């Protein structure tokens, strides 16, 4: 071939510009790349939890990679990777075409979970053992979930919704589109191993003959958080119909523990019709609906997910959806959030925290990057959903002590103002005997639990971390990242409609922040003079007899750190709960029981060099746990 010369700058520039033009669907590797990211639950910054509800500030909250799941996705996840590994009689295009021709796909697992996907509109439903179920409705862009324990349906709109693509005038559900890979011509069974920064992934393909059926079998293995390879999933596809018939997958650590087995199996079938609402999955008629759909900009972004995503994004207001979410809150709440955000950004980032509450003592170490506290503040302002943008945003270690003997006497007394003797406490604190020991090394999360008086020890190692804060933040700035929708539902100070039961006048110098959901109401009294921390936190729960006070927590002691940051050093807490007991006649009667106790917090600002050696070292933590005989579980 004689190449035609390219010498003119204009032609050269044309070719260079062409490198930025989009590829057609038959050439694009986008589905393959995204399938890989989905399958591996990869994250560029150690995962993302977009939820701002309960517990964002909870130091106990560690979220393992909760991966998405869908019926056809199970097949896609493997097949996307296996585009090259088809064998004679089974190509990617054939499988994709076979699935796309079906109306409904149905998957039944041996743990009583069922999943349905409608190929026409992407409708997606599941039901689990016990009755919990879920419905994603792509027509109305809603997600409804039913929790039998709460007895209510929760309705939401996810803030990002991409369900499929439009081709030739027809919107194809995402799951089906994912199968529309270019056909490939490698048909030799083989093994493929992919190595990336922190994972290894491999797939093998083989042919099986079972009960007169010829099946293509795909085995996927991947590395866990400790680098061990596990067979994570197997998928069987009927070589005759080209449809997936069976899947076996490794359950997550929690389910493995709960079920007492490693794998579960599912069987595919393809149906003419399927359920279209939660009622058809067995949710009782008249079940109350908690509507958490809020009218913010993020929702409008979902209205047409099939069209040009760039254009949709460009149409967003300059200040972004999160700021718009802040704007829907009562002005008093906004002032409290802005004030708290400012103080959080300035809070010291290297800390030792000692907490004393009833019979439990906890010692924690916290070290955040300079940027992280600023990001937390931005999270409070709803400017970002996830503060951990950096590769190693923060590190955290905590260990508790629940022993009843050998505890120094001075730790049994609750005094609101005294200085706790930290030198003596540190010398005494049994670091190796905690019931719960918890480490975030900046990359992974480790949870060590000692059961039955330390006769059994279990260690969970999870990839990734979520936004976290030093423990005291949980109490004094809990409101700051409370679910925005619930904060907006809490009535502002001027509305007294529920004041008889719930509200009370609070001093004019304090700000009032309220939250409301179907079975829980919260009220925080915020003191602008004390860094916008909550000086009081009141909680009501809805029970059969109506609303009842569940908890009343008051700040009774304050301390200031070098640099001026305030923190609550002593809390006075009253908890109430309804107890059902048998009376003298043997009849069940309800009675309300109240307990009152205190909590002390002692914070010390540290320098980098002050931290105990290797306190945040995950590798050493695991080695030590293994030496102790811990049973190790990974994600």
């Amino acid at each position, binding site marked *: 071939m004689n190449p035609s010369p*390219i*010498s003119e700058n204009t032609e050269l520039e044309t*070719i*260079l510009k*062409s*490198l*930025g*033009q*989009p*590829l*057609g669907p*038959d*050439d694009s*590797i*986008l589905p393959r*790349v*995204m399938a*890989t*990211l*989905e*399958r591996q639950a990869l*994250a*560029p*910054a150690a995962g*993302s939890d977009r*939820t701002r509800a309960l517990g964002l500030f909870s130091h106990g909250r560690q979220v*393992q990679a*909760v991966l*998405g*799941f*869908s019926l056809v*996705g199970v097949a*896609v996840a493997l097949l996307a990777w296996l585009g090259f590994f088809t064998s004679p009689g089974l190509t990617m295009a054939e499988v994709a075409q076979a699935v796309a021709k079906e109306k409904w796909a149905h998957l039944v697992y041996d743990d009583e979970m069922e999943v349905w996907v409608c190929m026409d509109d992407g409708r*997606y439903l599941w039901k689990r053992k016990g009755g919990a179920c*879920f419905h*994603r409705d792509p027509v109305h862009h809603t997600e409804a979930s039913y929790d039998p324990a709460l007895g209510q349906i929760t309705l*939401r709109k*996810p803030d990002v919704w*991409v369900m*499929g*693509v*439009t081709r030739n005038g027809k919107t194809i559900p*995402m799951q089906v589109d*994912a199968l529309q890979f*270019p056909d490939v011509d*490698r048909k030799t069974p083989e093994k493929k191993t992919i190595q*990336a920064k*922190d994972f290894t992934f491999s797939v093998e393909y083989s042919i099986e003959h079972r009960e007169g059926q010829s099946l293509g079998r795909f085995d996927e293995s991947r590395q866990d958080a400790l680098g061990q390879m596990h067979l994570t999933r197997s998928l069987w596809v009927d070589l005759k119909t080209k449809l997936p018939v069976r899947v076996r*997958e490794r359950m*997550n650590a929690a*389910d493995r523990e709960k079920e007492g087995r490693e794998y579960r199996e599912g069987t595919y079938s393809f149906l003419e019709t399927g359920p279209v609402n939660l009622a058809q999955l067995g949710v009782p008629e008249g079940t109350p609906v908690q509507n958490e759909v809020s009218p913010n900009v993020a929702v409008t972004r979902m209205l047409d997910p*099939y069209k*040009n*995503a*760039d*254009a949709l994004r460009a149409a967003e207001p300059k200040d972004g959806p999160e700021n718009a979410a802040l704007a829907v809150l009562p002005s008093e709440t906004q002032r409290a959030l802005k004030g708290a955000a400012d103080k959080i950004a300035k809070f010291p980032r290297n800390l030792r925290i000692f907490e004393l509450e009833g019979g439990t003592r906890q010692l924690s170490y916290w070290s955040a990057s300079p940027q992280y506290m600023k990001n937390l503040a931005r999270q409070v302002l709803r400017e*970002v*959903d996830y503060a951990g*943008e950096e*590769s190693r945003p923060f590190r955290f270690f905590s260990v508790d002590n629940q022993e009843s003997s050998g505890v120094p006497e001075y730790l049994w007394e609750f005094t609101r103002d005294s200085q706790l003797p930290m030198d003596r406490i540190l010398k005494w604190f049994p670091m190796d005997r905690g019931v719960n020991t918890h480490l975030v090394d900046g990359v992974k999360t480790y949870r060590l639990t000692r059961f039955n008086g330390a006769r059994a020890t279990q260690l969970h190692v999870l990839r990734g971390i979520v936004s976290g804060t030093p423990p005291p933040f949980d109490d004094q700035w809990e409101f700051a990242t409370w679910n925005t929708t619930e904060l907006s539902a809490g009535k502002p100070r001027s509305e007294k409609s529920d004041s008889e039961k719930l509200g009370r006048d609070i001093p004019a110098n304090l700000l009032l922040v309220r939250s409301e959901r179907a079975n829980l109401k919260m009220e925080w009294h915020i003191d602008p003079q004390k860094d916008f921390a909550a000086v009081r936190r009141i909680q009501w729960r809805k029970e059969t007899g109506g609303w009842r006070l569940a908890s009343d927590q008051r700040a009774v002691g304050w301390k200031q750190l070098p640099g001026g940051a305030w923190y609550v050093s002593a809390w006075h807490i009253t908890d109430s709960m309804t107890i059902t007991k048998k009376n003298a006649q043997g009849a069940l009667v309800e009675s309300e029981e109240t307990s009152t106790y205190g909590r002390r917090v002692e914070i010390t600002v540290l320098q980098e060099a002050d931290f105990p050696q290797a306190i945040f070292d995950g590798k050493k933590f695991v080695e030590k746990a293994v030496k102790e005989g811990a049973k190790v579980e990974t994600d």
Partner: protein
Amino acid sequence: MCPEPPLTGIGASSFGVHGRTCGNPVIPTQTLVKRALEGDRESFALLVGRYERLVLGVAFNALGNFHAAQDVAQEAFVTAYCQLATLRNPAVFGPWVAQMTARLARKPKNRQAPHIPLNPDLQNPNSTTPWDRDEVQRVLSALNELPEALRTLMILRYVDGLDSAEIARVTRRPLGTVTKLISRALERLRIQLVKVQK
């Protein structure tokens, strides 16, 4: 929290986003990188769409094998995603992932596929937007010979479609320097092409 069952698999995501305008970057690359870092997969999908032709071209240029190029391009994007937090200047995502692709293509395991001379029959038979044309490959070969700094400017100018002022801003260089360097890069590219053609 989304009530998805805690299983592995594919959920509703940006899996099949094809509705994009890669050649017309309405959203700046740095914004997409930032959003991807915040966990927004859709933004990363847009980045893949924007640079996959370049990345495939670079991989094909090094390997001369359609399937191997796809493998390497895929690996490059996945690696880029994992290492996104290490990218100091998000605006240069394109040059960065192209460089990563070239590096991956040089690995022995990726060079095992036979390097086959360009032949239309070896292209993707279903392709509607062929990216492995001969003249494109020659330009990529020439581009590959440029020093990294000049290659980055070329990619920002033509693939990202940034004007000189924008490039000056994102690379923090004086405008005059950028203009001169682009002009010098084009000239060197033209000379290099003549060499390649000979």
